[in-house]
């Protein structure tokens, strides 16, 4: 059994980590948070040139063709660095959606551009509060024209194209919309994590292309989200590890009552519990990585397990990281809240944990 990443894959991960330490220190994250820019374009360009995020896109579509295991480890480093990149939208979701159900022409046109970062794509599904279900979607496509309003759309200000869920012929479908067309209106929506910007997109009779079979939107979306959930889980464990490390380092350096606070059992046990949730999440994420890389029949169960465990671990670690820092953790200047915010964003972005808990138990029932 080799239920682990190979030495080559770990070496790649080290390279990616060093790259982010150099190219995306926390000052870069904070600069985007304080600006109205849609994304960190210079970092996106550098990452794209290095091809890190194109790891799982096949060579014939301009990707690196390395594989999903490599992309998982890249995602872990994106999460650790809190990198302000549209990776969740453009790579984990949009590229996967194209690979799953795009026509050859759509793949040939768009995948190379997503792989080299020239274009950014996003997913526009939700419209209102609550879990996304067909009856909560009002957007419609009639005669090839899309009308409707989507929010939140992650990276919707930066994106060049969006895959939009809308009712069309045969039921709920997915439609490719180019966002430079007339009839598209975009506006910023304040995000809990301002390093990952959110938008509202309004479509008024915008010409769109069908993606995949008519009426297959829900099935394709669900299959894509399983794949994205594994990748997001790696961002989450990267972030959780960073938050745990911050808390540990602070507990060693902060003195109270004549000794480092990390010497008090109340703090030690809190940190031990953070470590436990991180390791449980990591092991679940590894299983997800295996299922994603081998396209295993257990992917739905593995993805839901990875997502539920990683969402819990990152929130737990980010929350307690603030607590270990005491009052300083509640200041804007300390970075604790950046993880707290990112953890919330990553828990929401593919549908929140309760939805994934149901998917998990349903998938367990199918294999049990």
């Amino acid at each position, binding site marked *: 059994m080799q239920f682990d990443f190979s030495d080559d894959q770990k070496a790649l991960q080290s390279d990616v980590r060093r790259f982010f330490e150099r190219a995306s220190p926390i000052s870069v994250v904070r600069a985007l948070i304080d600006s109205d820019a849609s994304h960190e374009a210079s970092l996106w360009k550098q990452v794209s040139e290095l091809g890190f995020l194109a790891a799982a896109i096949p060579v014939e579509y301009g990707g690196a063709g390395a594989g999903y295991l490599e992309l998982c480890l890249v995602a872990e480093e994106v999460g650790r660095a809190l990198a302000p990149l549209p990776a969740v939208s453009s790579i984990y979701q949009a590229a996967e959606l194209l690979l799953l159900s795009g026509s050859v022409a759509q793949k040939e046109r768009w995948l190379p551009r997503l792989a080299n970062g020239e274009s950014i794509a996003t997913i526009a599904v939700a419209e209102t509060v609550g879990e996304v279900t067909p009856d909560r979607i009002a957007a419609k496509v009639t005669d090839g024209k899309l009308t409707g309003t989507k929010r939140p759309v992650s990276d919707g200000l930066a994106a060049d194209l969006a895959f939009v869920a809308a009712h069309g012929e045969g039921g709920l479908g997915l439609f490719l919309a180019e966002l430079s067309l007339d009839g598209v209106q975009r506006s910023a929506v304040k995000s809990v994590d301002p390093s990952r910007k959110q938008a509202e997109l309004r479509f008024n009779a915008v010409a769109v292309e069908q993606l995949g079979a008519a009426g297959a939107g829900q099935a394709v979306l669900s299959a894509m989200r399983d794949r994205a959930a594994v990748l997001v889980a790696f961002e989450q464990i990267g972030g959780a590890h960073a938050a745990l490390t911050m808390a540990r380092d602070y507990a060693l350096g902060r003195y109270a009552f004549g000794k480092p606070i990390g010497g008090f059992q109340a703090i030690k046990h809190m940190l031990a519990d953070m470590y436990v949730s991180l*390791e449980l999440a990591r092991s679940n994420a590894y299983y997800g990585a295996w299922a994603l890389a081998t396209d295993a029949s257990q992917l739905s169960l593995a993805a839901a397990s990875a997502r539920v465990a990683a969402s819990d671990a990152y929130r737990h670690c980010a929350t307690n990281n603030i607590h270990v820092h005491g009052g300083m953790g509640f200041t804007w200047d300390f970075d604790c809240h950046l993880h707290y915010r990112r953890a919330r964003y990553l828990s929401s972005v593919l549908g929140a944990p309760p939805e994934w808990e149901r998917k998990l138990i349903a998938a367990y029932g199918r294999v049990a």
Partner: protein
Amino acid sequence: MNFDDTPAEAEFRSRAAAWIAANAPFELEKELERANFGLQLHSTDPVAASKAWQKKKYDAGWAALRWPKEYGGAERSPIEQVIWSHEEGVFSKLNIPFAIGFGMCGPTVMKWAREDQKRQLLPRLASGQDIWCQLFSEPAAGSDLAGIRTRAERDGDEWVVNGQKIWTSGARDAEWGLLITRTDPTIAKHRGLTMFFLDMKSPGIEIRPIRQANEESHFNEVYFTDVRIPDAQRLGEVGQGWTVALTTLMNERMSIGAEMPTSFAELYALCRELGVIGDSAVVSRLAKFAVKASGLRYTAFRAISALSRGEQPGPENSIGKLVAGSMIQEMSQFALDLEGEAGMLLETEISPERAWFRATLLRSPAIRIEGGTDEVLRNIIAERVLGLPPEARVDKDVPFNQIPSAATAAR
């Protein structure tokens, strides 16, 4: 990343499986599957069945897989031990009477006993002749193990032991015991300890089963009244007992690659039986248990993978009992909640799942205490994995007989 055996591992696995299929006591299979905690058999004497299985394995070269041949072992690799355990499956429950011997006492004897003693004692353990017990905990010394009070006083070539041990598994069945004693109460507590092994049939030993909170009597109290032990059965130097004990305790926590059984499958089956899978509150709880169960499972797989590469598994292994203990406890409460008012009954004629969660309700508090409490395990993770400072120990350099205790506080 894969779950496949190497060719050598596959070859070992198929040989192990074939031997087990041809030799295991299949007449006990059903009963073993039903056994909840410990080795419970009704059709036959469990200790005799356990010794017979161990002897059979020994004769065929499948016993003490990790030990050197001269001590009765098979000199196999750690990953082969894991593969064997996997293949042994439900029959591994027959090993429970030997768990303390192989897990703790054997490794301590191997490290600290004289060569002739090792050649005498260890093959007897490997071949299922001798059961060992561990005489460490005392009524006033649990997590604070170095606070033990059982006295050993030198008398020529012998030591005379007086005191009391508690929570001793298998004391009634054991041929040998590993005993930690206080030989000098006038110096600091960790320095005044000495380790021995002794014949459990020695005069002056009295064993009293403890009636546990779950009505079973797996654990014992062991009383020592002028019990004489030859000095030749001392392990390590006089005053070196703490160092010797650390060998034992390190082995106790090193059940590498062993997946803690959490019985999520049983909980899911119960929810199906009761028709509550559609309830959203039930689903949410189930999912939270599921990711802990799978997390533990794949954490064990990570450790097995490290063993397969010939490496030491990482510290993530230390989370197993900590997670499983409270999880089993919470699952049993949840399972009985699902039964409504019937959850208050200890019925016997019910499904195996419903019986299991009744057994775990009453047994699980002990899981979080035995072999290191949840708090001790959190300290270990915090100190050894995360590098946080140890607790300040106010009694560290105080002569043992001057350390405050409940008795001195009452004065």
